[in-house]
């Protein structure tokens, strides 16, 4: 009996959270339909997400591409399919590893900083001050971040794709003895539009998830420094989990049967 009740409580609080987040998103959308639109703020967020995340995302991508080439080479050697290395690298990177790893990195960087910034604004009454200065905080704080996340993640992932493939190429040519032209040829030979496109769709969804969790948890931060700390943790952890769940669902959507 107790067990059932516990499950029930868990489910209720789960749906409560989903409802609150949906409401938050709805309010952000609703308030953003009317001008002003704050293009300066959107631009600043885009630079923050897109440009300043480049080093960490690039680094992740190049090492992932390199390790993929090494691993698939030694694995495929067992049934003499070494020639598939280039194809495996490009497909794994564009479909899965590019978007997922970039999103995990950005969730740590951007999700945390958004939650901390907005949470601090909440506890120091800056969000209340916005309201008294006739500025809607959903419009001013939330929407620019959501838009920037949705717009910039695909760009980041595209860059990560290219760098990741390049990482595989370096290892393939310098260490595994592939002919450069042949490696490139087999990289693109079996690559389909859908591989890249599905990865970019994932990236846009992940961008939305990361920024939404950052804004939502920051906005509802409890009072005090501890409240901001908790908000930051919640923003990152919930974004990571949602990224993995949605990654599966989008993959299912694109590639099942």
């Amino acid at each position, binding site marked *: 009996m107790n067990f059932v009740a516990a499950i029930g409580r868990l489910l209720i609080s789960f749906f409560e959270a989903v409802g609150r987040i949906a409401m938050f998103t709805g309010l952000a959308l609703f*308030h953003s339909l009317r001008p*002003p639109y704050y293009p300066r703020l959107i631009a600043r967020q885009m630079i923050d997400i897109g440009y300043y995340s480049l080093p960490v995302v690039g680094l992740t991508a190049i090492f992932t591409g390199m390790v993929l080439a090494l691993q698939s080479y030694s694995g495929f050697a067992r049934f003499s399919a070494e020639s598939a290395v280039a194809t495996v690298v490009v497909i794994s990177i564009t479909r899965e590893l590019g978007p997922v790893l970039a999103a995990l990195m950005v969730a740590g960087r951007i999700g945390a900083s958004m939650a901390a*910034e907005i949470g*601090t*604004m*909440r*506890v*120091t*009454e*800056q*969000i*209340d*001050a916005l*309201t*008294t*200065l*006739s*500025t*809607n905080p959903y419009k*001013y704080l939330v929407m620019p971040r959501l838009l920037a996340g949705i717009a910039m993640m695909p760009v980041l992932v595209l860059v990560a794709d290219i760098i990741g493939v390049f990482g595989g190429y370096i290892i393939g040519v310098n260490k595994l003895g592939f002919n450069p032209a042949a490696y490139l040829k087999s990289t693109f030979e079996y690559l389909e539009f859908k591989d890249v496109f599905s990865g970019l769709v994932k990236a846009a969804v992940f961008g939305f998830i990361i920024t939404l969790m950052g804004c939502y948890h920051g906005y*509802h931060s*409890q*009072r*005090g420094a501890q409240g901001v700390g908790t908000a930051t943790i919640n923003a990152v952890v919930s974004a990571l989990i949602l990224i993995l769940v949605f990654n599966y669902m989008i993959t299912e959507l694109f590639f099942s049967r």
Partner: protein
Amino acid sequence: MSTNLQTPKIKVRGLKKAFGRKVVLDGLDLDVMSGESVVIIGGSGTGKSVLLKCILGIIQPDAGSIEIDGEEVTRMSSRERERVMRKFGMLFQGGALFDSLRVWENVSFGLVQAQGMERVQAKDIAIRKLAAVGLGPEVGELLPAELSGGMQKRVALARAIATEPEIIFFDEPTTGLDPIMSDVINDLIVDCVKQLGATTLSITHDLASARKIAHRIAMIYNGKIIWSGPVQKIDYTGNAYVDQFIHGRAEGPIKVEVGAINDPTPGSRR
């Protein structure tokens, strides 16, 4: 302006607000007439800030009515509410300056964001407002974190008056400042209010400050206004609660819950 002199600028009736089981406002009534300067006194954590935030629509009250210029605001749509809120300026307890913006951008925020003024023009006005609170134009280029507490309060004051609002709220404008700086801020408030002809509602537990800026003083206790009267009468109220408060005595009808000392400092809503 055809505002009827009989209509209070702010009229609060039966205002109630509880957080969980903790009742903060319990049927509070308050009138503020046009051009009047009312100061609310009362102990820490008695709901003074919550009252201001209810009037501003930052906190949703549980029950009661709030009228601004005769318009009921508690049931307004967010859009209408925004229109009414343009009449207000607010100086927050902690300043609440935007720490990612420079000082002049803070001061001109309402002009640029809400009224759509050009930044160049808004900067001119910001610099004039800064001068009005005794700060030079070079301060305008700094970030709030680079200022002392007294300067932050002045910048917050400049921001509150920049849009020349009809109604201004001051939440503990002198708390945390030395007595001289407190007096400077009090003078600035009196001057600014006189110049703008604004209606003001202030919170303080600094009696010197209250005597200086108030026409009328109201004391809040247990979620209600228990006494209100002209500032000249504050020393002869014959009210034991008010007497205890203005003389700062630990003994008297007001019982301080010592447990409350461990409560986190009251801040913004959750």
